[in-house]
């Protein structure tokens, strides 16, 4: 058993920001199944929102708040959003003070650009690799204080140690050696990222398999608003690799097979810069009605009118992605794009301090905190605005770090008295996986899950498709048990961990579907063809899903915090 004051699972923006905040007074461990700089925060491209008012002098956190609330389709908790937008300018400047390499305006201030759903140009950016710039700056700060930290790189989270809704540790496994370790701590922070990997067309990294969510859920923690998955309008056709919204922020057009800028029909004011849920639905409608390019399932993102110089200065990375992955240079030709599963609005429910809660009354899970994409505070509600994800990670990562610090100062570590008990679930699953010797193939099960989720639980949903998909997932869960593990070794057995990841993905896919089938309205990222309207009378509430001992998903609901802005019709 290894002892630390604080254990942080995940080394992306939220995890490292929290670690930095908490390590002053405590012995902090960061656990990541990859390396910190490999975290998926680094893949965020276009920017991070903050009302610095560098470009639009009349911008303010109040505008940022309203935009975010409206963007969330009024499902965002307004107390949390208010904190986020007010903290935003400070945490972003703080990142700049940490050395983050931001692009600059002509006065030498942080450069800003327009972004979807934001009424003012408030996206602070580092060309089109903002997440990368922020992630590396934080890693540098972590290296600076590394004497106070232990980084467990390439360690996999297997389980949490939670008894009577009190968390005092985590079970992790060294990927290199296969050795399982019990970490005993005063508190654990979940910063494990999103759950987009269950989809065939996705911008997410292989690592985004929702491990943290499932570890929490297996310990009785509910998952909130899981049915809300964001489909980003501009995924590279075929795989869904992200083409930053900054492309449209800088003036890119979306064009259908008839050569029309079709956003005119759907959001005549903001056009291509409407929020993502709306743009993705518009694209999907064009495609469904036969107006894709050559009638196929993609449309064009046309950047040519921006000119070489602007593209090279502002969008060098996405230009390169187009060249490398589909052989199209956006300087010369339009890029084929399609909606791609991108962001997870749902996650582990927590309050504005990062404290994980376990029911609609916000009862805490003592010692367990969450921040970043795996958390659901909820600042994004039913649809996240572009550039608010990096912001959430930094703001709430920092806040969670402060909470951890406070908590650890006032709490003694509770020893894990029964190590065998703590390891029970982990050992059982390990044994099962190692002995798996059935006829099914992990690869086939995974592919069927991904295809099913993209086709039947995508941009537009209907009860037939979702029902079919849920049955499929349940069937795949059974078939998973009849798979075989090809690598029986202990050292760096990625086959073994991919199997666990698949199991996790099947489990959260089920929750996405159960929540989505039940939510009989259309709101943000959840669009149903049988209930096309938002229903504030019955559905202005967060979903809380728990898994009972017999494996059944139970749903409950939690009210939305509405402080300043009453729901209204969303027009852009």
């Amino acid at each position: 058993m290894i002892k630390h004051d604080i254990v942080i699972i995940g080394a992306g923006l939220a995890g490292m920001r929290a670690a930095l905040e908490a390590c002053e007074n405590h012995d902090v461990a960061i656990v990541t199944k990859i390396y910190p700089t490999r975290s998926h925060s680094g893949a965020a491209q276009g920017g991070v929102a903050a009302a610095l008012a560098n470009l639009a002098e009349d911008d303010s956190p109040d505008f940022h708040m309203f935009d975010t609330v409206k963007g969330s389709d009024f499902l965002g908790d307004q107390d949390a959003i208010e904190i986020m937008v007010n903290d935003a300018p400070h945490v972003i400047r703080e990142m700049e003070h940490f050395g983050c390499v931001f692009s600059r305006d002509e006065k030498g201030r942080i450069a800003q650009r327009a972004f979807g759903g934001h009424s003012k140009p408030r996206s602070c950016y580092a060309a089109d690799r903002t997440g990368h710039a922020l992630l590396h700056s934080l890693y540098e700060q972590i290296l600076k204080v590394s004497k106070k930290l232990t980084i467990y790189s390439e360690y996999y989270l297997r389980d949490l140690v939670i008894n009577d809704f009190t968390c005092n540790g985590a079970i992790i496994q060294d990927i290199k050696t296969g050795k399982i370790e019990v970490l005993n701590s005063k508190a654990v922070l979940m910063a494990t990222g999103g759950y987009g990997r269950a989809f065939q067309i996705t911008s997410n990294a292989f690592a985004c398999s929702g491990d943290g969510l499932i570890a929490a859920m297996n310990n009785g923690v509910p998952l909130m608003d899981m049915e809300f998955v964001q489909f980003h309008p501009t995924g590279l056709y075929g795989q869904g690799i992200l083409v930053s919204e900054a492309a449209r922020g800088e003036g890119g057009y979306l064009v259908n097979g008839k050569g029309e800028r079709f956003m005119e029909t759907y959001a005549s004011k903001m056009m291509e810069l409407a929020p993502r849920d709306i743009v993705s639905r518009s694209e999907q409608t064009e495609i469904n009605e036969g107006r894709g390019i050559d009638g196929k399932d993609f449309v064009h993102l046309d950047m040519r009118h921006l000119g070489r110089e602007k593209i090279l200065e502002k969008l060098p990375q996405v230009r390169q992605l187009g060249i490398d992955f589909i052989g199209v240079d956006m300087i010369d030709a339009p890029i084929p794009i399609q909606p791609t599963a991108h962001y997870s609005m749902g996650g582990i429910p927590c309050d504005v301090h990062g404290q994980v809660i376990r029911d609609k009354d916000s009862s805490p899970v003592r010692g367990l905190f969450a921040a970043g994409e795996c958390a659901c505070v909820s600042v994004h509600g039913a649809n996240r605005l572009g550039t608010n994800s990096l912001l959430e990670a930094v703001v709430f990562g920092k806040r969670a770090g402060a909470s951890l610090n406070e908590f650890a100062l006032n709490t003694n570590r509770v020893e894990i008295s029964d190590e065998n008990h703590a390891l029970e679930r982990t050992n059982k699953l390990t044994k099962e996986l190692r002995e798996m010797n059935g006829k099914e193939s992990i690869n086939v099960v995974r592919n069927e899950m991904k295809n099913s989720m993209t086709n039947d639980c995508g941009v537009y949903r209907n009860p037939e498709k979702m029902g079919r998909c849920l049955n499929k997932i349940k069937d795949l869960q059974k078939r998973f048990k009849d798979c075989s593990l090809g690598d029986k070794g202990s050292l760096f057995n990625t086959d073994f961990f991919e199997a666990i990841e698949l199991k996790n993905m099947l489990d959260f896919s089920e929750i996405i579907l159960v929540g989505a089938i039940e939510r009989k309205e259309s709101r943000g990222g959840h669009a149903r063809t049988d209930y096309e309207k938002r229903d504030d009378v019955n559905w202005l509430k967060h979903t809380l899903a728990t898994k009972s001992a017999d494996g059944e998903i139970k749903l409950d609901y939690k009210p939305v915090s509405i402080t300043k802005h009453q729901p209204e019709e969303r027009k852009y």
Partner: protein
Amino acid sequence: MKTVVVTIDRFDQENQRGSYQQDFTIEIPNGLTVLDCLNKIKWEQDHTLTYRMSCRSAICGSCAFRINGKSKLGCKTQADDVITNGKLRIGPIGNTDIIKDLVVDLEPFWYKLKKVKPWLFANKPKDTTKEFYQSSEGYHKIEDASTCILCACCISECNSLKVDKNYVGPAALAKAQRFIDDSRDKNFVQRTREISEPTKVWDCTHCGECSERCPTDAKPLSRIEEIRERVVNAGVHNNGGARHLLSFFKSVGSSGTLDERKIPIESVGIGNLHANLGEIMPVGLKMLSHGKAPSMIHHNVDKVGEVRKIFKKLNKL
């Protein structure tokens, strides 16, 4: 669809197989990346095949492999670009110890990165009501280095690292440039001194492999050249590299050509000459005895006045 034979350089210590090569035959459609090929093999043929991957969009830096002998990112490399005669070879990156198959030990890589103190020493007090101002020009000085994704492609073929495990290597040096040239950093002087120490900026042999393999704009060799420019212009001259450079300037600036008699002596340093005579004497004597010694008088190039004039105006060293 086409048939490709992928030869993989594998390593398995657990089952005492050690290093071995294995051929896999796969059918692939157009548009697959090398990483896609590996996944196809792992998921459809041999689940024990092991490698790192994550973002598959060339930003996380996990999937550096030797592809046909040279390091590249698997996810960024189109298979069609590297398959020749239906063949493709994939191995672990070089200058590292192998853990399993394509997975290498990166601990020395991370350790060396830390050696250049890659964090900002802010030169103003923290006040979160405003940011540090940095000109667009200042940003562009550090932009290229900031695109580094720490994938370690650059260390794979590095010639200096191959003969000296203590050399910090190109990635760490690129990172160092990013801070040496950051207008917000207050430790410029100390950084220029520390980066001039042995195993750092002057141990690069300028082979260009790092920049050639770099999948981003970080291009370490260019960053190394920038560091050298900064340190010699900052007056950090107490090392062989700087002395060698100054000797070049002196010689070319006065005669238009290199004075081969003086370069070795001045590089070792007049003050250190006595102690280091043994370093340069043997070859000098050999050259003399083979009739290869440079002539006693060092000749100037024709119209040397033009060269001197250029140096007089532009040389700041």
